[in-house]
């Protein structure tokens, strides 16, 4: 869209394709895709990067990023990434996963990939819901949150508490950098970009495992408007998933 008298200050990164995504209004995935593409372009890494798309809302991520990418069975994503990294240790390999993929069906994989210290970067989108399948309870769904499989709200009696992935992984020796960020105000998005940058640096320079957990809006299945979803993250999610650096042994 052109606006009379306006100058384009920031264009589309080369590694982000001019594709119309299938994401809902207010979804966080597009923002994180853009961040990844910006870093790849800023650092000139298009020819050095191999990404993993998950099963979940970001399953078509390879339609939007102009880099080599691989699909994975649901939850096995970081192990497929580890297999790629073992074969091509000189490449930047990242695993992009949602909360169902990473913290439910793929919990075994993420723990062991982290425990072995596989030198990959994991970008973990936590929106407390299964989006692709229609808004079912996720392992990160907050107590009381209504989903299509918790119509009365998540009950901690039968369904347990949300799982804090960063804190869980922080008990392991090998992960060197675990940070939780938020897709909220612009400065939070900048913080998210810096965290992903740091994760990529950790991989390239320290050959170590790192993970960035991003609290991300899902207005459609939270049943709130996109503009209210930032407030929703602050009110409901940040109490359970406190943002910040959970572990950092890089210094």
């Amino acid at each position, binding site marked *: 869209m052109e606006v009379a008298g306006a100058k384009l200050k920031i264009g589309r990164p080369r590694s982000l394709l001019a594709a119309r995504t299938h994401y809902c209004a207010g979804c966080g995935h597009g923002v994180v895709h853009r961040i990844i593409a910006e870093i790849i372009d800023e650092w000139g890494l*298009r*020819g*050095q*990067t*191999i990404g993993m*798309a998950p099963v979940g809302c970001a*399953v*078509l991520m*390879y339609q939007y*990023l*102009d*880099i*080599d*990418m*691989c*699909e*994975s*069975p649901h939850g*096995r*994503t970081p*192990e*497929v*990434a*580890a*297999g*790629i*990294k*073992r*074969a*091509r240790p000189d*490449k*930047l390999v990242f695993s992009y996963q949602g909360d169902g993929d990473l913290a439910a069906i793929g919990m*075994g*994989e993420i*723990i*062991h990939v982290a425990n*072995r210290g596989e030198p990959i970067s994991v970008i973990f989108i936590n929106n407390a819901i299964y989006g692709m399948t229609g808004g079912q309870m996720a392992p990160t769904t907050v107590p009381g949150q209504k989903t299509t499989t918790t119509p009365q709200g998540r009950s901690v009696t039968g369904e347990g508490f949300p799982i804090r992935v960063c804190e869980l992984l922080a008990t392991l020796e090998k992960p060197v950098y675990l940070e939780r960020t938020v897709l909220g105000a612009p400065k939070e998005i900048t913080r998210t970009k810096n965290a992903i940058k740091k994760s990529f640096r950790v991989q390239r320079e320290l050959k170590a495992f790192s993970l960035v957990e991003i609290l991300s809006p899902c207005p459609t299945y939270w049943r709130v408007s996109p503009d209210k979803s930032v407030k929703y993250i602050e009110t409901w999610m940040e109490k359970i998933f406190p943002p910040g650096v959970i572990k950092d042994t890089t210094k």
Partner: protein
Amino acid sequence: MAQASTEEKILITGNVAAAEGAVRAGCRFYFGYPITPQNDLPEYMSARMPAVGGTFVQAESELAAMALLHGAAAAGGRAMTSSSSPGVSLKQEALSYLAGSELPALIVNVQRAGPGLGDVRCGQADYFQATRGGGHGDYRLLVLAPHTVQETFDLAYEAFDLAEKWRCPVMILSDQQLGQMMEPVVPAPMSTLPAVRDLPWALSGAEGGRPKRIVKSFYWRPGELEEFNKRLREKYIKMERELPRWEEDRAADAEIVLVAYGTSARIARDAVGLAREAGIRAGLVRPITLWPFPAAPLVAAAKRGARFLVVEMSWGQMIDDVKLSLYGTPRPVDLCWRAGGGVPDVAEVFEQVRRLAGK
């Protein structure tokens, strides 16, 4: 440790033969999970892989081992895993994805008896699972069935060439006896291939501005998946035309043709020997590819008027393929089976041959 030489002869188990055959073919990635009766294979690889500059990972599950294999194969490496029946059931998810992504890889199943946890003794009851794909969706694996330790080595050595030519995962369907027995092997020389290659579809990073590559099995636009399935089907039809392989033993004039693979084929061959001594014209057709199944020698024998006796350690799986092969030339097909860890002995197979011959 074996050294490459044309004069070389080594005494190894079937399981180690599968491992060393793969290594000599250039396999530099092994991922597995412990399960009896194939543990000497990953144990061997845990030392052998580092010695050849390769990668060995003992994964936390069969699912994870397959995921690592998926990644290494997608990146252009020759990757292998092995397991036994209950473990191979867990691998089915990934096998469907590998077939859908058209990735080459080698999977060894050292069959034990089932169902369920079953027993660690010998079995051949994973035939359906191996030859029908095993996971969800329409696909096939190229299934190779050795019957000696040497043949286990040879088929593992050849497996990656076939897997890459057809862009299809290859399964070696072994069994507990074949995997754990030792026999002398004359090994092929060591491959000079690099650990990873920039195959036209392999993920290597889109260097120099080349178009990106995607390894995937997901087709979401209407009609796209059906088109992909048509292409897959055409590939499998071509494989069915070009790949069937078998060995015949005294089958040319046989009135009773035994059909058996793996350990059962060794027993059936001895029974053929006893039958010949008793004046019964018996012979053996031993499928080497289980998929695609070699129908031709059975049809030829049927046209000569032969009848058939299938010998297998399951209460009847491969017999279905024998009957399908004879669809246009029906002849009697009988079954000699042991299952649940039982191994047929030569005398009981011979006894059944003798009865069928009316002697």
